[in-house]
């Protein structure tokens, strides 16, 4: 059920300001694609346009095409709600619903679509999602405790469990490890590796080592200066980006000469 994403001539604006210019990219199904680049280059903004979450930011809009297995997310009459139920998202800071228990957090998205899910089916779904997020063993005895009582890394995995419980086609991750300690980061990276057997995963990261560890393909975004739009500079298999980049800018960035 994982799907590919093809982006054609996408421009993202904040009001009059062009934030990301003319992106063309093809993201393969069942793979991990990483977006890297310096701060402010528009990679997070671009990620949000892949499930129309940028529309939450006042004044932000996108022009162009994003095709999910051939269907344009920005086509006429497409409801962003439908898009987001097909393309899940994990945020920079873990955000479990504070008033819900761990179990209810996992079921939050499912209950929207299927209010009368039997409690047995719900139990199974909670277990499979938490197992999928490598969290089951840690929380199975306290499923009815609030999700906010978990550690940061556990909370982030809970958010991933919540995202995969709705069986999306694609999972977007916006710097999912930047608020976590190294051990939790490792747990999430292992998880990403497992997720790609079932899902298309797109991850934004600041950390080049992380990109080289988890991703199959890497896209490098850059910005010429403040006030200029971000651009996709190079997109290639991860090994090539890090070992044999075609563009000078990419080489400078991955070798640590700037950024």
């Amino acid at each position, binding site marked *: 059920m994982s799907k590919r994403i093809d982006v054609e001539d996408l421009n993202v604006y904040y009001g009059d300001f062009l934030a990301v210019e003319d992106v063309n990219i093809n993201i393969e199904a069942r793979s991990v694609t990483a977006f890297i680049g310096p701060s402010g280059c528009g990679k997070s903004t671009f990620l949000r346009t892949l*499930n129309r*979450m940028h529309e*939450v930011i*006042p*004044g932000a809009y996108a022009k162009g095409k994003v095709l999910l297995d051939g269907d344009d997310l920005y086509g006429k009459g497409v409801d962003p*709600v*439908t*898009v*987001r*139920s*097909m393309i*899940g*998202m994990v*945020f920079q*800071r873990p*955000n*479990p*619903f*504070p*008033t*819900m228990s761990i179990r209810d957090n996992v079921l*939050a*998205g499912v209950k*929207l*679509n299927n209010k009368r899910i039997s409690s047995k089916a719900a139990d199974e779904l909670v277990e499979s999602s938490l197992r999928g997020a490598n969290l089951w063993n840690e929380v199975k005895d306290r499923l009815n405790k609030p999700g*906010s009582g978990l550690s940061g890394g556990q909370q982030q995995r809970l*958010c991933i469990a*919540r*995202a995969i419980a*709705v069986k999306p086609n694609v999972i977007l991750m916006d710097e999912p490890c930047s608020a976590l300690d190294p051990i939790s980061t490792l747990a999430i990276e292992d998880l990403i590796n497992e997720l790609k057997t079932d899902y298309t995963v797109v991850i934004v990261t600041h950390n080049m080592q992380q990109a080289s560890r988890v991703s199959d393909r890497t896209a490098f975004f850059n910005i010429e200066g403040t006030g200029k739009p971000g651009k996709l500079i190079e997109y290639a298999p991860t090994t090539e980006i890090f070992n044999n980049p075609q563009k000078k800018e990419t080489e400078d960035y991955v070798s640590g000469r700037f950024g």
Partner: protein
Amino acid sequence: MSTTASAQKPGTKNSAAGRAGDSIFSGLSLAAGILIFAVLAAVALFLLLQALPTFAAPADEITGGEGFFSYIWPLVLGTLIAAIIALLIATPIGILVALYISHYAPARISKSVGYVIDLLAAIPSVIYGAWGATVLAPALVPFYNWLAENLGFIPIFAGPASQTGKTMMTAGVVLAIMILPIITSMSREIFTQTPKLHEEAALALGATRWEMIRMSVLPFARPGIISSVMLALGRALGETMAVALVLSSGPMIASLIKSGNQTIAAEIALNFPEAYGLRLSELIAAGLVLFLITLVVNMIARAIIARYKEFSGAN
């Protein structure tokens, strides 16, 4: 800039004077704080002292001739009825308007919409009273007639309806308009404080706007909504002018669309200017009862805020 200006002064000044200034100033501000206690204690004390003759007087000298309790309880009931009508109308509308400002209105206009609602709060109560008596009451008469004809079998809508419209129901509607801004402005503030993180979590799961509000905004704001409603209730209980001008008062009756009923605050306002002797202390005793009722309501509201403050702070 002012930092440097004042920094030079202590050097040139006698430091003993500076120290004295310190203690005088802290003493003054402490005294002001303690004065607040004194004022509140004085409010309770003087009302009690002036009300005492009422409790000592023989029952047949009290208005109505059956003692203070039979005098006050219809008024208490009337006060509660008016406040409850107001709450039933203002709570849903107030919360929805708050949602409109925080989550539905286009960003460009939501701020000005907030100002408009604040304007509702700025209009003096006597003007609401005058408006209620001259514009709203006549406008509601056909509606009351319809209620009396079609729902007259329910005691609160028993006819014949008042032909001036100066009824408990009208007073409740005017009170609702007056407390609406309280509910709206407090709820709106809490709605906008909902962490963006939680709203995005819901949206990213494919929630519609209303589902997002139900999943992340309302659970976060629930204690705030409850306490805003309690504060609005306190205001509605104590509001005088809307009722004094709008209600054509009388003995207690069940029907809300006939003349009749009275609230404590309006009873005081209407009778105090001509009162003397025992009647005066009777009205002050009524004021004391009103004070206690609003005190309890407000304390409950504050307790709710205080209890949930720690809870929401932890997240």
